[in-house]
């Protein structure tokens, strides 16, 4: 049983890892076809993964409703929003879900007038919180925090007309910050992250990193 539970997953990870790493260096039609096929399989599996997320969210809110925890009534709206969207989505403008997606349906209406406005407003509200958090934390206590504060102020001013109104140099300095020191730091971080990603990938393929198997036997 241990063979099925532990060894087979390690073999699958090793075979898939080696196969796909080699595939990149083989410029043959078969190699390209292999990439297309496994990418399609990956998309299908990702499609099933959505149901795990959906179950998890529904289960969480169902537990809140069942146990009548404080604010449980709001969880009803999660179900209401999801069910309404699913009904209109599967109805597909009267053509039903087994046909191709129709345009201009109630599902699209929900997307345009619920999902988009609510999403954009929730993200825009962060502007207030970021500003208040910055006011509390961005104090020029050290040289490093002063540099951070100055860079943020210059980039912000450089992106709005008032920056140009104060001085013609501010937009130019903001562009320079983005193109030179910011680029250099981002590149350094990216190189570090990439090397880390390669090391982790190798550890997964060789079976050293096994945390994705979860706990238990």
């Amino acid at each position, binding site marked *: 049983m241990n063979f099925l*539970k532990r060894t*087979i*997953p390690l073999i699958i*990870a090793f075979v*898939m*890892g080696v*196969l796909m790493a080699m595939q*990149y260096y083989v410029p043959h039609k078969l190699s390209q076809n292999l990439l297309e096929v496994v990418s399609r399989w990956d998309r*299908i*599996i990702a*499609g*099933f*993964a*959505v149901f795990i997320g*959906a179950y998890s969210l529904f289960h969480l809110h169902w537990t809140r409703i069942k146990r009548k925890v404080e604010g449980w009534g*709001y*969880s009803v*709206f*999660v179900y209401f*929003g999801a*069910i*309404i*969207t699913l009904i209109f*989505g599967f109805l597909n403008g009267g053509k039903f*879900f*087994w046909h191709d997606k129709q345009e201009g349906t109630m*599902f699209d209406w*929900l997307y345009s*007038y619920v*999902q*988009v*406005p*609510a999403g954009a*407003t*929730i993200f*825009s*509200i*962060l*502007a207030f919180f*970021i500003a208040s958090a*910055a006011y509390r934390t961005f104090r020029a206590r050290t040289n490093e925090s002063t540099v951070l504060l100055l860079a943020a102020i210059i*980039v*912000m001013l450089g*992106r709005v007309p008032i920056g140009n109104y104060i001085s013609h140099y501010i937009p130019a300095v903001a562009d*320079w910050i*983005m193109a030179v*020191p*910011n680029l*250099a730091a981002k*590149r*350094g971080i*990216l*190189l570090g*992250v990439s090397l880390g990603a*390669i090391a982790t*990938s190798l550890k997964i*393929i060789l079976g050293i990193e096994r945390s*994705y*198997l*979860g706990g238990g036997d």
Partner: protein
Amino acid sequence: MRKDSGFFILVGAMGLFVSINIFLMTSGKLPFSFDGFGIILGAGLTLAIYSFLYKDNAAFKIVENLYVGVSLGYTIIITWFNFLKPDLYDPLIIPMFSKAATKSPQYALIIPSLLGLFMLLRFSRRLSWLSRWTFAFVVGLGAGVSIPRVISAFILEQIKPSLHPVFSGGETIFSSINTLLIMLGVISVLIYFIFSVEHKGAIGKVSKIGIWFLMISFGASFGYTVMGRLSLLIGRIQFLLKDWLGILQ
């Protein structure tokens, strides 16, 4: 007493919102159609979320939970139409069970279907171990695909412009200084992230320069994020004043 005042403010705000919409509809500023009702709904949701800036309240919590539900439903439907239907239902299920199908079923798709179903067994106590096969497939595939591509796209392609010659003809003095600064920044940031060596002496000094570059980058990223959020805020205010109230033209 405070709870009552919050309730009255909520009811008053809702009454005002309904009155404004009745006025907008009757005056013809908003069309009496699905689009018109959509704009009213969008405006209501926007105002309910912004009400949080005053204080946490029932309207905000309702919209917050509604948004989560709608987003979940949207994700499921889009997953069906964009992934499961074209990649699994159309090439496997329809040819298997429909007599009108012209193409033969792609039986190889049974493998990812089984792997997908195995993943759902995560919730079973006895069979949850089968989900490991799926995770091993996905993780192994991702690891294998990423190694050569990360080397090519992120390491080699990032090193190449970092080692650009300072003088190769035709540059200004400023562009040469910038090239040098970028090289200095990349090297110093990389040295800062080497934690297996104590940051003392020359290493300490170079890593200090790396910190300065990182601070400038974090500040720039912060400023950029704030401006992005502000442009979203401007977009929502425009929606309220232009699309809903019709004040802006």
